[in-house]
């Protein structure tokens, strides 16, 4: 297939490009980027991207596709459709499936299923420990051979420092990062941030220090054994401080945050809406400000969704019992563009946190528009206003606290490996 995208504002941070250019896609590769590329008359699609942004397809380092095991919450098919709609061309799926992705056969299953049914690229993340139990290392080498790009016990911290140390050391053999969910379960007994909101609602809490202690511990261990540590869904001001300080003397630390951690405060939980239940919990206004500052000054490298789709019954119950998580793939771009509209990030900086930075972390050959690269390209408009309607989500998970929100910015076209996998108008 030949696609010519004309007159869009091409933002390609890796190649320092930010200007009005044309992009010519031939087959599965980006053949040429330049001014006024002439139509040859053989194109399948010629797309006028005037007033729109043309960017490398986004890479999400943290999603839950729920397959195998929880197909009633999401499947690889529906999760990647949601990803494509949201502007993501690659996603990293976490290991807390059933069975857990702690062995080659599950990794292979996910990769095969994604090739058959996926709308975007899927890169499995293997479990650090067997059954996510935090005790014995999984067969990381075998899974790496099958295609995992990182390891994580996401949803839990590796409780024992000794086990985490071994995992960090072992990960060096394969050059893959350890993605760490930071939560000291001795300190977290609950469901929402410890703050004024918890005083008001009486819900049990996850204090900010439960995250920060593990952020500090994991960095210390990684530094000691000289391994790559990636701290995921960072949510507190204290974590940003620690990471800022540690990054100054150790370069193999990266981290991400999620749109809900800069869009909502703990106050959103006051009506016991279980769609606001997420782990780590929504934090205070002060934390939100620190997260934004961390994104602005580059301490936070990546924006990930932690897309955590759930079926309605898992959410439609008592707050304490309800499942944690937000279905985030279809609102991430617009919520993140709020940072651009507020002047926190430039469009270039924002695109970088969704493309080059995650690609570098995972050593993926995507996330930029270099000529000759695989054609993973999106076209979005940062100014189009729309109202979030969970019923229009392609994800099976309609669990969003943003339903009814008026947002600004919309993905219009997603191309993966030269194929159009999602479009909204334009053609």
């Amino acid at each position, binding site marked *: 297939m030949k696609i010519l995208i004309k007159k869009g504002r091409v933002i390609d941070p890796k190649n320092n490009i930010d200007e009005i250019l044309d992009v010519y896609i031939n087959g599965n590769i980006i053949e040429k980027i330049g001014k006024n590329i002439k139509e040859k008359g053989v194109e399948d699609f010629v797309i006028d991207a005037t007033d729109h942004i043309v960017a490398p397809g986004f890479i999400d380092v943290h999603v839950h596709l729920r397959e195998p095991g929880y197909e009633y919450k999401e499947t690889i098919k529906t999760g990647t459709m949601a990803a494509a709609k949201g502007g993501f061309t690659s996603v990293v799926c976490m290991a807390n499936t059933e069975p857990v992705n702690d062995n080659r056969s599950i990794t292979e299953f996910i990769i095969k299923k994604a090739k058959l049914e996926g709308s975007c690229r899927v890169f499995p993340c293997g479990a650090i420990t067997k059954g996510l139990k935090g005790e014995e290392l999984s067969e990381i080498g075998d899974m790496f051979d099958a295609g995992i790009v990182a390891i994580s016990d996401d949803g839990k911290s590796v409780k024992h420092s000794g086990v985490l140390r071994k995992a960090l050391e072992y990960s060096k053999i394969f050059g893959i990062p350890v993605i760490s969910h930071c939560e000291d379960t001795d300190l977290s007994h609950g469901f929402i941030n410890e703050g*004024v909101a918890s005083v*008001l609602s*009486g*819900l*049990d809490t996850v204090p900010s220090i439960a995250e920060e202690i593990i952020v500090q511990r994991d960095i210390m261990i990684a530094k000691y054994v000289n391994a790559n540590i990636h701290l995921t869904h960072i949510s507190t001001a204290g974590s940003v401080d620690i990471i800022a300080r540690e990054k100054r003397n150790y370069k193999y630390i990266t981290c991400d945050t999620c749109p809900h951690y800069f869009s909502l405060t703990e106050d959103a939980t006051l009506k*016991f809406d279980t769609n606001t239940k997420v782990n780590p919990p929504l934090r205070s206004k002060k934390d939100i400000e620190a997260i934004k500052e961390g994104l602005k000054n580059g301490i936070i490298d990546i924006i990930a969704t932690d897309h955590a789709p759930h079926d309605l019954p898992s959410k439609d119950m008592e*707050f304490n019992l309800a499942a944690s998580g937000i279905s985030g793939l279809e609102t991430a771009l617009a919520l993140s563009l709020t940072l651009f509209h507020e002047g926190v990030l430039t469009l270039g900086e924002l695109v970088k946190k969704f493309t080059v930075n995650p690609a570098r972390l995972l050593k993926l050959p995507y996330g930029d528009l270099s000529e000759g690269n695989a054609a993973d390209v999106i076209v979005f408009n940062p100014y189009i206003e729309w109202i979030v309607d969970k019923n229009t989500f392609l994800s099976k998970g309609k669990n969003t606290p943003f339903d009814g929100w008026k947002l600004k910015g919309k993905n219009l076209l997603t191309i993966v490996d030269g194929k159009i996998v999602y479009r909204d108008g334009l053609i």
Partner: protein
Amino acid sequence: MNWTKKDLLEIKDLTKDEILLILETAESFKEISLREIKKVPTLRGKTVITLFYEPSTRTRTSFEIAAKRLSADTINISASTSSFVKGETLKDTGKNLESMKPDVIIIRHSMPGAPHILARTLKSSIINAGDGAHEHPTQALLDLFTIKEKKGKIDGLKIVIIGDIMHSRVARSNIFALKQFDTEIVCCGPATMIPPYIEKLGIAVEYNINRAVKDADVVMMLRIQKERGRISYIPSIREYAILYGLKKAHLEKAKKDVIVMHPGPMNRGVEISDEVADGEYSVILDQVENGVAVRMAILYLLTGREQ
């Protein structure tokens, strides 16, 4: 003013006028319980269900008596006899009950926000009779009623709440209610049982009971919930009784006409000594008596609301 709300879920929801309306209405209902024939036809033909997922003597009996004195039909369901043990969700239980057309469902549950699930789902009026550590609005209203009755006012008083503030729905509801008035609120208890950030609500925190009760008009005692494992927050019941058990000597530092309150059930010799519980300052049984009147008022207002 007229009552318009369908449910009574939390004190936080109420305006000061709404609180005053409940207290005023309760005043007129109090007399009914003193009659020889303790029944009026006000709620005849109305159905009131109490749905209790936690044990309760006082609150449930109080609601049932209140409803019966207003001539409503009452049905009591407790967790051990309900479909809860068969795995039915709260929402489904609520929907099934609603099919039988109750006017009011009174729910007690161990989890914050559980009454809100019913309130969102059902057309019946929902009354929160205690949801985890969140709120116990009718307790706070009967406490305010008792304070007003004994002191003639609420404004200008110093109220000290002593005990496990962190896990207490009674403390929370009372704090939210009392903050609507011009009151000085002091929370006192072991530091492990004072929720962080509570001072941001304008509440003073005092770890020393002697300093806390100084010049107090009202002392509210809370129970240590041994059955919920709260014992792990303190070294021992023995030490708690020494440090935070209210004794007569403490009250000498309070105002001369101080009143001592307790929502029950009391652990005598732990948070409160016999001499205080049964002494001249105690209004603990008045609270129980007033509970019926306040709950009659709430049932009356909710079922007669303007729609």
